């Protein structure tokens, strides 16, 4: 978290700079089956974030040393397009993207029934086309819908949501200014049916009570986004093949 300026992020009326309430999410839209070349795909817009996910597979895992005898491996690449941020990002190796790819893959392995596909690989490609804080969460949501769109069996979906802290106040779903000048960010991946957590990161400063409140907001928002995910998949099934 930046937290180094004296930027006001809460208005006198208790609302946030963009008019949202403390526990109000940015608008979210989801479309499934957007990429003809992929086995499954989805596009998520969350505020001004645009995340696209493509799923390929299950396919043979090669090189063989990555194969697992008893399950599929999930190979995730989270990537920010060069034009997705304020300053252009150079294509290629990037420590932040590698870390997010790793923990996202591990989260998805927690819900996909990987034991159904021994020795195989499922590729999940997450592309961030526009970034306005919260891209890893939008990417997890998009990946979940794309996996469902590809017909990969899962014991639950994962909903990516985040809460944080600004001006000593816990708020739901930080936008860009709040992320830059706020005090904490708590992005999580929640299983909507069980409330379990498959993805967890946090940085900044949160007391235990603040953490508990932030998680409460996250669980609430996960329910809302889950409905939008289900709607997107329904529209897709009704609409037939893309």
């Amino acid at each position, binding site marked *: 978290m930046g937290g180094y300026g004296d930027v006001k992020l809460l208005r006198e009326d208790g609302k946030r700079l963009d008019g949202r309430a403390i526990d109000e999410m940015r608008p979210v839209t989801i479309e499934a089956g957007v990429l003809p*070349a992929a086995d499954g795909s989805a596009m998520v817009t969350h505020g001004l974030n645009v995340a696209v996910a493509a799923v390929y597979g299950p396919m043979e895992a090669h090189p063989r040393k990555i194969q697992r005898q008893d399950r599929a491996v999930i190979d995730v690449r989270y990537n920010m397009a060069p034009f997705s941020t304020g300053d252009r990002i150079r*294509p290629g190796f990037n420590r932040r993207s590698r870390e997010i790819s790793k923990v996202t893959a591990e989260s998805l392995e927690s819900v996909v029934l990987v034991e159904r596909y021994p020795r195989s690989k499922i590729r999940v490609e997450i592309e961030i086309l526009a970034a306005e804080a919260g891209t890893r969460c939008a990417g997890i949501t998009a990946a979940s819908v794309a996996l469902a769109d590809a017909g990969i069996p899962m014991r639950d979906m994962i909903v990516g949501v985040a809460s944080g802290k600004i001006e000593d106040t816990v708020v739901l779903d930080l936008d860009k200014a709040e992320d830059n000048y706020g005090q904490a960010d708590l992005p999580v991946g929640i299983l909507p049916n069980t409330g379990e957590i498959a993805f967890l990161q946090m940085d900044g400063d949160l007391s235990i009570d603040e953490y508990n409140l932030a998680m409460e907001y996250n669980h609430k928002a996960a329910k809302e986004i889950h409905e939008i995910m289900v709607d997107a998949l329904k529209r897709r099934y009704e609409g037939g093949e893309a």
Partner: protein
Amino acid sequence: MVELVPSLLRQELDRLAAEGQRIDGRGQFEGREVHLEVDCLYNAEGSAKVVWGDTIIYAGVKFEIRTPWPDRPTQGSLMCGAELRPVAHRKYEPGPPSPESIELGRVVDRGIRESGCIDMDELCIVPGEKVWGVMIDIHVLSDGGNIFDAAGLAAIAALRTAVVPAERFDVGEDHTLKVNGTPIMASFKRAGGRFVYDPSEEEELGGDERIHITLGDEGHLHSLQKGLKGVFTPDEFAEILAVAEQKCSELREMVAEKEGN
């Protein structure tokens, strides 16, 4: 045994060509439906989305402030790159830029650069000190065939609708980037022994060489590229060049319409 498919596919393309047909029912020089959208991405200073049959490509423009080269103190720079990331097709693998992605980026780059549509002197902020560097990035999301033409279209549309973010860099007021022309690419592929316009994924898999032609507003050639195995005759080239002139005009009009929006 991946190679069996192309072999059978080749026979099928030969058979269809003998009857004057294409595998998806199009005429020899008939293109697929093209949708163009501009100014569609937050943070990009210019952006375009092209849906060209099953091919989907975004292009985004970003600006940076650079020190000019000592021997060209008033000239900015233009750079166009392409990534063929694994998102776009089962066949693309992660790793350093492939020769295919380098070729794609460089052919689009040459078409735009050599048309002269960007006057490098217009990119000067303070001579010898500060110039704009313009970077166009092509992001292929779905490869359904003929990514060259779709990428070229997305790139020039993003460029023609770009806004120079002078305020963010504290060097004046934001303003539209000046672009003097609309270079457009038309690509042809030998499939079933003859050249077809706008090859589909199957024609790319079962065909031979490609020729990429970029034409400017006045019908001049700005970039040529032959790719893949195969040779062609001067007569064949003359025939597709005539087709290219018509196709490029049509797409140039499409860009002009979108700019009006």
